[in-house]
């Protein structure tokens, strides 16, 4: 609950993650690969 209150007060939220791109799906299909 405390965390939620802190989140609500944040003035700026910005974040981004990076990785090597490997997506090859399309609207007709998404590759599921869970082992």
């Amino acid at each position, binding site marked *: 609950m405390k965390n939620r209150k802190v989140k609500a007060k944040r003035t*700026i939220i*910005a974040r981004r*993650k990076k990785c090597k*791109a490997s997506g090859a*799906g*399309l*609207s*007709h299909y*998404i590759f599921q690969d869970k082992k």
Partner: protein
Amino acid sequence: MKSYFNTGKGIQLQPIDIGHPRYFGLVSADTAFWSLIRKDRMAYALARPSFLETYRRKEKYFVEEMNTLRFGRKPFAVYFNPTDRCNLNCPYCYIPEKMRRHGRNMPSFKMLRALKILKSYFRQTLPKNIKPQIIFHGAEPMLNKETVLEVIRRFADDFQFGIQTNGTLLDAETIDFLVSKNISIGMSLDGHTEVVAGRLRKTWDGRGVFSEVVSAIRQLRGYTNYSVICTVTKENMPHLADIIEFLHEEKVPVCMLNPLRCTSPASRPHKPKDSRFAAHYLKALDRSFELYKKTGRRIVIANFANVLVGILAPSARRLMCDISPCGGGRCFFAVSARGDAFACSEFIGLSRFKGGNIFKDKIKTILESKAFKLVTGRKVENIHPCAQCAIRHFCGSPCPAEAHQMNGSMEKIGAFCEFYEEQVRYAMRLIADGKEEGFLWDGWDKGTSVSLEISTL
């Protein structure tokens, strides 16, 4: 370092209304940088040098990242049609009716030859530790089942295989085989009841196939590598939230609620109105979150999750429709039952977009063909109004096939601009409220690292 914005060489930042009570979005469109700023503190945030300087330090990297994602990829997957034919006659299909009704199967010896050609090509272009993907697509690939299964057996060490099927021909033995080989299975189902599902997805003699597909879904229960695609049309649009509830109850792990593609003229009478579709779609997203909160089990709506991932980690997106240029012809390409190659399955049936034939032409030549360049050269910077749109790299203005066929050229938008706007706005509201994880698949950020994080009180 100067921290000006929106003048001279300064950072370009566009405010966007995301429909949140407390936050605005602030986006630098070219780099797909986004931030959420409290509405009552916008001036304060922009006046803080640390905010703009943090972004400025990363800007060059973000430009490179987007360039690599948009222009630096190599094909990694092939959508392969083992047959032209289908046992269903869905009016929104992008494959022409004549082809689906009277087309041919690719003979076994030809399909084995095709896979050898593709294996040889990918050996030259991909690192050894990466297995390319072959996705059997259609039409209905199970109409050439014996050949498909033979190919999977023979090339199991060379490719990751997937299959998109209407599910009507999946018997227990076939399912056991596909599951034993860890094949990624996609199935198509357009409704939560026989009536809704059968409005457009029918056999040639007009019979719905709901019970057969649900039976296959039940046989797959517990298998994690499958998903259900629901094509959204005017006919099933009002039921999207109920469809999500039904699929969740059936323990389907992942689904897509994709609007029909308007590439074929026969599909267009079934096109849902953009704004009405968006409203029903957002209700379905809400319902998926309610179900998650209630049961602790998610049903991921993958086409939305992909938009969300495209915001949080642009290079981690899995679907390559909503980035510009799209993935057609550069991340994947399609091969028809005759061996003809197209940038995407969506173009099968449009001879102008045939880039060559894999039995006659080198794949490298096909990828560089004029037909492929028409698709790979389509980018948002050349499309009105996308060129000015703040969210152009969260949407990508899909799809080139429908833009060309329905709206007249590659420099036109696709069919569902407003739908994408609403998805991005919804995604940003989720991030503002810290709810985004409830909409993403487990491990969505595996292999990622943080490139920027600002959280200012």
